[in-house]
């Protein structure tokens, strides 16, 4: 068997190189997020948001932008025979799950490097929330990466892939979004960041990440069977 670390690095490197070359996912995700913020700004007719409304606008936008990337995560494997090439190699197939989740995590972090400053510029009075928000972003992204990779691998063989991913992913992401908005809400409170139940929500996010990471690791091998 090829060492898992080498196979993981090979698959992740291949995905990131292909994305850098084609820019098929990231620009669409970023453009969607920025456009959504513009629509929210004029639709709500507000120059400043706080509390639960700010958290809701941020996380709904990031989640729907993430769906665009999740939809395309396995397209190259499906259309260019990557699944077969990887299935023929002497590697643990859960390495593919880990590498794809890592690639999605990189896309989500890159998306947020663009979207969150735009959100702050449009809606926040100060940037004080952004520091602690980073922890919420990372933990939520880990959960989205695990769930999204799992759902994307299941949906990629379907002709209704674009429909199936949001239909299956969004209900599974509800607990994640509840915890993410719960942790974000006090950070964006009027009068500056607060930390009411912040730690509890972070723990919920970490638990979600652990559960879906383990589920993905456990079932991914079966998903690749014919």
């Amino acid at each position: 068997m090829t060492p898992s670390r080498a196979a993981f690095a090979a698959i992740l490197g291949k995905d990131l190189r292909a994305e850098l070359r084609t820019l098929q996912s990231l620009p669409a995700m970023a453009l969607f997020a920025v456009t959504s913020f513009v629509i929210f700004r004029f639709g709500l007719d507000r120059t400043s948001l706080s509390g639960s409304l700010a958290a809701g606008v941020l996380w709904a936008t990031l989640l729907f932008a993430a769906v665009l990337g999740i939809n395309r995560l396995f397209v190259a494997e499906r259309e260019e025979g990557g699944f077969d090439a990887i299935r023929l190699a002497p590697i643990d197939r859960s390495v593919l799950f880990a590498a794809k989740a890592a690639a999605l995590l990189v896309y989500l972090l890159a998306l947020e490097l663009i979207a969150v400053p735009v959100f702050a510029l449009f809606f926040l009075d100060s940037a004080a929330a952004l520091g602690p928000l980073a922890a919420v972003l990372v933990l939520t992204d880990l959960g989205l990466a695990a769930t999204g990779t799992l759902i994307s691998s299941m949906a990629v063989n379907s002709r209704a892939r674009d429909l199936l991913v949001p239909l299956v992913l969004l209900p599974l992401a509800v607990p994640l979004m509840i915890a993410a908005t719960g942790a974000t809400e006090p950070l964006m409170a009027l009068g500056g960041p607060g930390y009411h139940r912040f730690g509890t929500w972070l723990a919920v996010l970490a638990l979600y990440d652990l559960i879906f990471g383990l589920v993905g690791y456990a079932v991914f091998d079966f998903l690749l069977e014919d």
Partner: protein
Amino acid sequence: MGSENTPPDEPALRLAGLRRDFGERTALDGVGLELAAGESLLVLGPNGAGKTTLLRVLATLLRPSGGEVRVLGCSLPGEAWKLRGRIGYLGHEPLLYRELSGRENLRFQARLHGLGGERAEARVAELLAAAGMERRADERVAALSAGMRQRLAICRCVLHEPELLLLDEPDSNLDAEGRELARALIGPGGGRSRVVVTHDPERFLPESDQVLRLGIGEAAVVS
């Protein structure tokens, strides 16, 4: 790399009553044969006879629905994990990423097969030269002709020095020069076994030890 050699008394292939169903349709039924290590098997039959299905079962990409399948001493589907890395599969699709260059694709495959560093670079360079692809090796696969993609696919197939080659129409899209180069890479010899699916028996018959004829709704015949 194909380091786990088949035991000396074990044939490369042993099939008995192999069946593969797709839902209610049976694509393969009652296929049985033995192929000694180092021998070549030619698979013939009309479209839809199950030739590609047979190769995909042997490559561990499809699970058999019934019968006994032993490949290089490994029983399928239970021991499929032991077999991967010991077979080279050339199918209808080149299994190459269109946005990567030929060299990047081969490097990627080399790493999946446990080859790294200078050893991988040397092997990739050797194969690109053998396939006459050195000058076009750094172009994106999407920009290459079908024949050049086939040459790269042949390189991918033999990159890890497999013990068994499973070749589905290996001459597809190749010109006369390409066919000669391909013969050097995937031709008989070198102690490895081969299963070749083709619609051009005259080309491959002289280098085959056995012929398997598959028919639609008929019993498979070995000669």
